[in-house]
Every structure is written in C-alpha cells, then in structure tokens.
C-alpha cells in the first residue's frame, strides 16, 4: 500500500492531510505566472514601428569594389548595398532585422549585415548561408530553399546607424530585401521567467495530482 504524502491526493482524489500544504494550489500560482511570462515575452516581440523595408541602396555601398580575397577563400565577398542612416532615439533599443534573398537555383550565398555607426565604422555583424536546391528522386522533382532569416539585436547607444549588406558566394542573389522594425523590447527576460515558473508549476502539480503520470498510464492501457 503506497503512502500518501501531505498535500498529495489519494486514489479517491481527496486530500490525505487537510492541515498540510496543498501543492496543487501552489502549482496553480506558478502555472499562471508561467503562462503570463510567456505571453508577455510574446508581446515584447511585437513590432512597434517600421524603420525600413526594401532593397538596400547599391550606389551608397560602403565600398564599391569587392573585398580582396584572402588566403583559403574560394569565393569573394561583395558589398551588396547600404541601408540608412536610420535613427536610434535611445540607448538599448531593440530591433528586428529580416533579410530575404532570391538565391539562384542550386546556388548558395552567405548574406551578411554589418551594423555600422554614424562614421560607418564596424560595430558587429550577423549573417547566414541562404540556399536554393532542386533535384529529382524516385518521387519526382523536389525543391528546397532557405532564403530568409531574422535577427533581433540591441543597439547600445542612441545615434545614426547603417546596415551594410554583403554577400559571399559564386553568384550573387538576384535580389536582397531587408526589413528593419523597432520592437517593444526584449522577450528574453520574461521567456526565462515563464519557462522556469512553468517547470516549477508542472513539478508541483505532479507532486499533488500526478496529472502527467495518470495521462501516460491511461495511454499505455
């Protein structure tokens, strides 16, 4: 015969010890705050203002010529175009940058965006290899592509900034479009809070009600 702990339900679903802690109630508090945290994190990812959307301006690129090829490189890097200047009104504003490219069939291109300050000095950059593949197999023709990526970044101080778009690959993409949106803030703090409180809530709920254990047991029958 299994022992029922204080606050834990017995087989009939009644509390074994009415004077003990009801872990089910405490779990509910954690679960509510966990969901609230995740919802708040989602709200912070909403865009508050569009800064730019469209192709970068090739004529205004930082350097008109390709960068010199370095030892070990197979393909050169090209400056594709420049975006900006755009204004950051206060320190630590969060932006979401979406980069999309039309990569030629069976080609790849590493599309990189450099964040430059008002003097066009390099601050940091981000990028991803985008590709487009097609082929044939026993099921017929197939096509797969990864031609877009998204980056959230915090701009550390107010001022004017540029994004310099560069591409590296045997063939440059047909076009690259970039969208920059200001978002309400960082989702990370409330995401961490939400995940941790949800986990604590689930553990406490298992101690009290064994919900997952019962559902799993029902599934095995």
């Amino acid at each position: 015969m299994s022992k029922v702990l204080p606050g834990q339900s017995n087989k009939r679903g009644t509390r074994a010890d009415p004077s003990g802690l009801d872990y089910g109630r405490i779990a509910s508090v954690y679960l509510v705050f966990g969901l609230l945290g995740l919802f708040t994190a989602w709200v912070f990812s909403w865009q508050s203002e569009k800064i730019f959307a469209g192709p970068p301006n090739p004529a205004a690129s930082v350097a008109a010529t390709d960068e010199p090829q370095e030892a070990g490189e197979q393909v050169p890097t090209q400056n594709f175009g420049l975006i900006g200047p755009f204004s950051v009104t206060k320190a630590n504003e969060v932006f979401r940058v979406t980069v999309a490219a039309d990569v030629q069939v069976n080609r790849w291109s590493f599309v990189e965006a450099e964040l430059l300050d008002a003097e066009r000095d390099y601050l940091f950059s981000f990028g991803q290899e985008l590709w487009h593949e097609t082929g044939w197999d026993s099921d017929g023709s197939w096509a797969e592509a990864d031609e877009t990526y998204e980056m959230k970044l915090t701009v550390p101080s107010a001022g004017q900034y540029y994004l310099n778009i560069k591409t590296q690959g045997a063939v440059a993409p047909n076009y690259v479009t970039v969208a920059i949106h200001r978002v309400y803030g960082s989702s990370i703090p409330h995401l961490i809070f939400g995940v941790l409180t949800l986990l604590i809530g689930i553990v406490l709920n298992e101690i009290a009600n064994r919900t997952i254990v019962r559902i799993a047991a029902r599934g095995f029958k």
Partner: protein
Amino acid sequence: MNDATRRVVYATATILSAIYLVLFYFALDGYGYSGHGGSHARASRWYWGGPETFHDPNNRAGSVDGTNRLGGGPESGK
C-alpha cells in the same frame, strides 16, 4: 484551502509578481540580444535560432600589421 496553503500561495504570488515587474526593466533595456552591453556583447543562450554573429571586425585584430577594419563574416580570417 487551509491557512498554511493560503500563506504560501499569497507569498509566492507576491514574490513572482515582484520578479515579473522587475523583468520589465530588463526587457525594455534590450537584455539578451547581441549588442546589449556594447557592440562586443553576444546574445544570451536563451536566444536561439538566429544567424551567426561576428563581434570582431576581423581575426586580424591582434596582428601586428592587421588593418583591423575589414569587416566580419566567415571570410575574415588571416
């Protein structure tokens, strides 16, 4: 709900509410993404799925004759 449970529920809700509100400061300060704390700062491990980031202008930054201003990216080695 007995008194002991009620006290724990109220205390837990109060503490979690305080933490939840304090986190707004960090959220509005851009915590967790590349660039928070300076242009050299990398993103938190909790930010996943984003592209690669490059925080040094290039790998020549420490070289005697390095130009230090060629830009980042996978091609930025010596």
